[in-house]
């Protein structure tokens, strides 16, 4: 897993996105082991073209692999709420909408950013991660992660 390579490719293609999911929770201080890079992307024509370019640079393929590979085109990104590409730098979950938070434009007002390998990376705030995880508790793992995020918030409050 090489999030630096993924984030660099996104920056080079000027993709509008925010880091969400496990890696965002990790950046905010959660002690999770997360194996993929989850992003919420702005689902608009120009941005989907830039994202498709970045994914091509990353040699991304739709995962799981199909007998007949599905090309990741701007139209594919425009027409799906969730795309799972696999790249040599790691797996990605590309989401057009985050349950409990909304779409890219909705979540950017409250999003934060952090420096990573010289890049400025937009990331969900801890409160946003808590709201998103509260809206999505399909598996016991989700409940565990929510508890971690709530504990992290308490830790921050007590300083």
């Amino acid at each position, binding site marked *: 897993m090489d999030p630096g390579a993924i984030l660099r490719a996104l920056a080079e293609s000027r993709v509008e996105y925010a880091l969400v999911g496990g890696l965002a929770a990790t*950046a905010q201080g959660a002690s999770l*082991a997360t194996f993929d890079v989850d992003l919420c992307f702005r689902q608009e024509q120009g941005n989907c073209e830039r994202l498709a370019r970045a994914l091509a640079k990353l040699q991304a393929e739709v995962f799981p692999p199909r007998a007949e590979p599905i090309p990741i085109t701007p139209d594919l990104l425009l027409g799906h709420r969730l795309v799972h590409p696999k790249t040599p730098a790691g797996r990605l979950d590309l989401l057009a909408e985050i349950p409990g938070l909304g779409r890219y434009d909705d979540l950017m007002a409250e999003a934060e950013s952090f420096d*990573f390998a010289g890049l400025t990376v937009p990331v969900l705030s801890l409160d946003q991660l808590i709201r998103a995880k509260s809206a999505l508790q399909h598996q016991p793992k989700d409940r565990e992660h929510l508890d971690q995020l709530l504990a992290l918030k308490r830790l*921050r409050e007590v300083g």
Partner: protein
Amino acid sequence: MLALTPEERVLRNVHFVALIEELRRGRPEPRA
């Protein structure tokens, strides 16, 4: 953990995940 920067936390995850994957590769498949 809170003393680390966000970048350090992400890099720690990268190392952690690499170790987990290495352990998984070395572990024999469970018998059916």
